């Protein structure tokens, strides 16, 4: 437990030294305010930017609800561009230690592989959720300012469930890091696998519910106030996280 704490703190200090908390948060803040601003002022933007000849904005178009705007911010911005940048930011989470010999130095101490992997998971999850939360809260503020009120408890519940998805993505990056050494390849594979789990919704809804991506549906339902939610997705996502970690643990022991 002491080793887990020491290793996690080191991960967090390293992220602070690399200004990850600042630039990732800024990035998510920009993503968070872009969607509500574009949705609200699309016609003004087109008018001022120019080059909008032939484009007509229906003046009678329905004004989207705050829930819809928040949903498009998360699924359109955070879960696509945001996710890619996030994965790129932690693509070297195991590879850097492995290639520098740091991993060997750590594992020859009385440190269990479990503590080492859990510290990586926890450290990068905290960094990611810190940035995402700041971005999401700013987006929430802009959305209720521009489109009307929205329940904070629902928004908070959404963030809580979304954090499970992020935990899964970090665990996936850890698992892939035990197979490949190149950080770029780790990033590409993690991005591809994560997008697959998101896109599977369009192909087979049942499979999507059984996949770790099912948690996204549950999270989005909190924004849309849908009550027939499938809480089984939480168990599925946790099971996949545990599976990823156990597999990574096994791989590192073997090679």
């Amino acid at each position: 437990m002491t080793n887990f704490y020491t290793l996690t703190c080191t991960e967090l200090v390293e992220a602070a030294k690399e200004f990850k908390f600042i630039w990732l948060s800024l990035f998510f803040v920009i993503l968070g305010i872009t969607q509500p601003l574009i949705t609200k002022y699309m016609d003004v933007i087109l008018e001022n930017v120019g080059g909008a000849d032939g484009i007509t904005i229906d003046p009678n178009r329905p004004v989207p609800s705050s829930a819809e705007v928040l949903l498009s911010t998360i699924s359109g911005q955070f879960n696509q561009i945001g996710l890619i940048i996030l994965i790129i930011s932690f693509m070297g989470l195991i590879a850097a230690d492995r290639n520098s010999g740091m991993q060997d130095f750590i594992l020859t101490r009385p440190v269990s592989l479990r503590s080492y992997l859990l510290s990586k998971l926890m450290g990068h999850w905290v960094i990611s959720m810190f940035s995402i939360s700041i971005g999401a809260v700013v987006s929430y503020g802009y959305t209720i300012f521009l489109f009307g009120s929205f329940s904070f408890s629902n928004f908070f519940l959404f963030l809580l469930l979304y954090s499970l998805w992020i935990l899964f993505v970090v665990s996936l990056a850890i698992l892939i890091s035990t197979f490949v050494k190149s950080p770029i390849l780790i990033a590409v594979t993690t991005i591809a696998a994560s997008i697959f789990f998101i896109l599977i919704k369009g192909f087979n809804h049942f499979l999507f519910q059984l996949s770790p991506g099912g948690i996204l549906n549950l999270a989005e339902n909190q924004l849309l106030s849908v009550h027939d939610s499938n809480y089984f997705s939480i168990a599925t996502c946790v099971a996949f996280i545990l599976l990823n970690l156990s597999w990574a643990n096994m791989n590192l022991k073997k090679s």
Partner: protein
Amino acid sequence: MITVVKLHKTIKKRKILSDVTFSIAEGECVGLLGPNGAGKTTLIKCMTGILQHEQGNITFNSNPIVQHKKNIGYLSQHTDFKPWMTCEESLFFFGKLSGLDKTFLKGNISAVLEEVGLKDKGNYKVEQLSGGMKQRLGIAQAILHQPLLLILDEPVSALDPIGRNEVKKLIARLKKRTTIIISTHILDDASEFCDRYIIIKNGMIVGNITEEFQKSDRKQILVKMGNVPQTSEALKSSEVERVECLSPNTFLLTGAVELDLQKVVNDFAAKEMDITSIEFYERGIEEIFLEMVSDT
């Protein structure tokens, strides 16, 4: 102290170690020699508990090695630390992972930095250190918890001559108080510290060379002549199978089996040959190594 019995290790369906058995006693300095890709690093990673092996046993004072991680200091082949940490912070980090308490660490870190010659570099960031300094910091983290066994994987191979010299001096000092295993393919370096050599090739132990072995390998005799013989064939006898001319008056005689020095001397005396000196030829570790790892 450490015993390895019938160790087998396979990585990605490729057999890396096969039936590896040896033991190392307390106080010994053993060189683990082998060409690149022989399995030295994998063996070391199994011995330090980083990798799990499929078959065999590794024991430290009769207990499984994983129970003795606190007694092992390890220097990895690729020595790099968190570049943003200072030397002191790096050592503090590793000390904490070793379970050392803060008070002990505070006193011990400066002592260890002094020992490795980095006393005045305690506040330097790792990224400011030279290759030799990083390697010495690597040794510092390995000895910080005062281990009984020190395992050094290629400690000098990536360094320039100055860095190598610094690290070699440090190892020579450590040898006096710790059991050391040094993995290297630079034989000159190994011969400076090691009492014994374990030679590994294709994942198998092909030699266990002691100083006695080097001396007791009595198949070759070095002869210096007063007069240069007309033909080296004159030096051949029933026991001597091959004669090599090393210089105009120095010859290396090789027998198929162990040679009897007295018999060879008598033989030369009978032929009235002018011998200045005659002695068993003690082969260097490099020659023995090359013979053991060569495919022919």
